């Protein structure tokens, strides 16, 4: 099973349906190809990552987002996704939790800075 991925005939449109990870998403247009390539390089991969690997990662990310969204819809206010739900779902994972807190804090500061700037401009 480990060697089947080295087959040069691998076509990124078709997925080997036997594996639950990347089945069923083959026909959808690739949403994040460019960004994921840069991201993989940033995280340590080669400067030109394999397209198949990028595809697998994209499927994983989309599945992750889908799962989180479904979970968030089922807690807190039903049928809606709110930030508090996401933070709640992430609470056990220290990295993601810290990252979300940082992002939201930074966003608040940016909004404040923007507002202060606009007011300063308005005066002049």
């Amino acid at each position, binding site marked *: 099973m*480990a060697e089947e*991925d*080295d087959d040069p005939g*691998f076509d990124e449109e078709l997925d080997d349906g036997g594996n639950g990870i990347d089945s069923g998403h083959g026909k959808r247009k690739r*949403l*994040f190809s460019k*960004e*994921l390539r*840069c*991201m*993989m*390089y*940033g*995280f*340590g*991969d*080669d400067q030109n*990552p*394999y397209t*198949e*690997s990028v595809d*697998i*990662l994209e499927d*994983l*990310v*989309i599945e*992750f*987002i*889908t*799962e*989180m*969204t*479904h*979970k968030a*819809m089922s807690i807190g206010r039903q*049928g*809606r*996704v*709110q*930030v508090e739900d*996401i*933070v709640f779902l*992430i609470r056990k994972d220290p*990295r*993601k939790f810290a*990252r*979300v807190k*940082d*992002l*939201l804090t*930074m*966003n608040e*500061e*940016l909004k404040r*800075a*923007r507002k*202060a*700037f*606009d*007011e300063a401009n308005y005066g002049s």
Partner: protein
Amino acid sequence: MADPARVKNEQATESTSAEKSLQVENAAEASSGTKAPVVSEATTEQVTLKDEDRMRLIKDEDEEEGPSSAPRPPLKKIKVEPDKKKEKRHKIDEDEIQKMQVLVSSFSEEQLNRYEMYRRSAFPKAAIKRLIQSITGSSVSQNVVIAMSGISKVFAGEIVEEALDVCEKWGDTPPLQPKHMREAVRRLKSREQIPNTKHKRILFH
């Protein structure tokens, strides 16, 4: 978490189209806005680095606070903080920032490139928003999109790191192959770091 890209926010000379995320803390701390906080179109999680901004990764200027019309001394902040804990956390942040700057300044060209890609890459907000909205069927706030893209990036990073571990363990070389990715996913699944609600567990069988 300290942002090593905190930039010296001097007076109006700096208010170019420089990325505001680099100057976030400074801008936010300025209570009376005597300096013009630089506001450009940078997004929160992207610390975009232009070439001259790379140098700013290395320079460190402390934040300046408080209303003052006189030109401020550009160095150490001299303010009385009412909260001792906040001051201690600032000190820890300062240390971390300085360490990061020492580190970044000693990067080779290739390392700098990779670091820039690491900080700069992000998922497009529009696509994420579209994806979430197609699942929920109703609209979501901007904060949700920000949080979700941030978490997804961390998630992608975890997988790539694990796959690199697998790759090294199996004695292969970098461009990651699908087999490494799959093994990484299998390992993360066993550690329950990958959410999976497809398998329905029957409680009392």
